[in-house]
């Protein structure tokens, strides 16, 4: 297993030199459709959830940009992790994120997801979301207004259209790194097993 620092260093370098020349015109077309249709799982982990209703309803109307809410993780393209994120919530975020179908993107909202924010010395929140799940776009602020969220979405759409938003590939390639960080704070049972054991056996349904 590579050290976390080396992996992060490699990610930074690969981002700098990412070229899209090997992409075909079909890829560009598909990326354009992906950009134009974004189903959002608005995960209200902490304080930021209150900024999302105005973003998606009449006042700011994100649907005119093709951005709309998704009912379940299965249907979603983007998960918004808003505000601080406690260890308990992190377990749910990982479970939800891994249920989503590729290609999937993560939008981190608020300063707490960048460096811990005002919870920088808290005993039960994570400080950098990037250590646990890969993030495509940060919207910093405490809290970011709906305008900022929309701007973050527009930047994310631009990255999707250019084929640069590839955090789900980063997660697959460096799964050991993320898993190690997750286990560091959550213990061995990061998320329940993904088979139907819980409901077929073990006194389930």
């Amino acid at each position, binding site marked *: 297993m590579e050290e976390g620092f080396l992996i992060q260093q490699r990610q930074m370098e690969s981002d700098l030199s990412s070229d899209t020349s090997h992409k075909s015109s079909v890829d560009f077309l598909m990326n354009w459709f992906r950009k134009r249709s974004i189903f959002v799982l608005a995960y209200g982990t902490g304080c930021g959830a209150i900024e999302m209703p105005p973003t998606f309803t009449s006042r700011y109307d994100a*649907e*005119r940009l*093709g951005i709309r809410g998704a009912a379940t993780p299965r*249907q979603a393209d983007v998960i918004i992790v808003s505000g601080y994120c406690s260890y308990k919530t992190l377990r749910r975020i990982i479970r939800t994120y891994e249920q989503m*179908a590729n290609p999937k993107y993560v939008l981190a909202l608020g300063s707490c997801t960048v460096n811990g924010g005002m919870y920088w010395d808290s005993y039960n929140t994570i400080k950098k979301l990037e250590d646990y799940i890969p993030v495509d776009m940060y919207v910093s602020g405490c809290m970011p207004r709906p305008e900022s969220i929309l701007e973050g979405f527009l930047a994310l759409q631009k990255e999707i259209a250019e084929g640069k938003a590839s955090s789900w590939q980063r997660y697959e390639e460096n799964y050991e790194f993320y898993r190690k960080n997750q286990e560091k704070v959550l213990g061995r049972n990061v998320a329940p097993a993904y088979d139907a054991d819980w409901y077929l056996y073990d006194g389930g349904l």
Partner: protein
Amino acid sequence: MVEYEMIVIDLFLMLVSAYVVGFLYYGLYRNITARFQRRIGPPVTQSFYDSIKFWVKEETLSHGWMFYLGPVIMMAGALMTLFFIPFFYQSDAFSGLSRYGNLFVVLYLMMLGPLGNAMGVGAGGSPFGAMGVTRGLTRLFAMELPFYIAVIALMSINHSADIATIAAHQESYNAFSYPLLFIGALFSFIAMMGQSPFDVPGAPVEVYSGPASEFSGKFLALLMSQSAIFSFAKLVLMVNLFLGGASGFAELLLKTFALFVFVIAFGALYGRFKTPQSVDFLVKVPTGIAVVGLLLAIYGG
């Protein structure tokens, strides 16, 4: 041999036109609903973007073969319903298989979708899916009563179960000749189109899109496509039965669109019933209206 080839081409054209028009209508539905809520709303083509995006998403789920078959059965039900409904009452083109089957076949085939839905969702094991299906099937019994009563009345008036015959034999529209039947069937139709106040199966904030909650990627794209095609088929059926059918594409689009906008407006104005409330309402009010309409139509004149 040539005849069969013609039918295949005909079916293909019906499929393509229903797909395109259905998705455009769905885009208009989102746009018009947005205008009701004082928003700008997505472009009309947004449904195509959503659909294509879902087609190219990766699929990692596995819930057994019944889970895969569920959306396929729904799509088959929608397509067969479409193929047995003639678009135009006096033309061989776009008549599909309607000369081989009548209204009974259509009513039977309309049941295939909910059946496939229930079996696929059941295999998925999502509790919200099971809740959505239970709510949908509970509503289904009440939803069909007024529509079936109206259809039986129309069949007995026309002495025929052929859709094209019923569409052609309307001096003024059936909607105006038999208003009570039309009102009863219209309530069922709003429920069939999944509009408020009868949208209990897929209630977004209650059961998280219900039957569709476990489907992602290509399954969801298939479900969206079948929903668009099935909606258009139901609109054409309603236009054929009550609004005098159509003799050309312009008339068909005009009539289906008018009906569609009415349904959207109705849905945008009203909140959602609870499941028992919707069953109660459908069994009492529209069924009562349709029964009175049936008695008037048979014994009144």
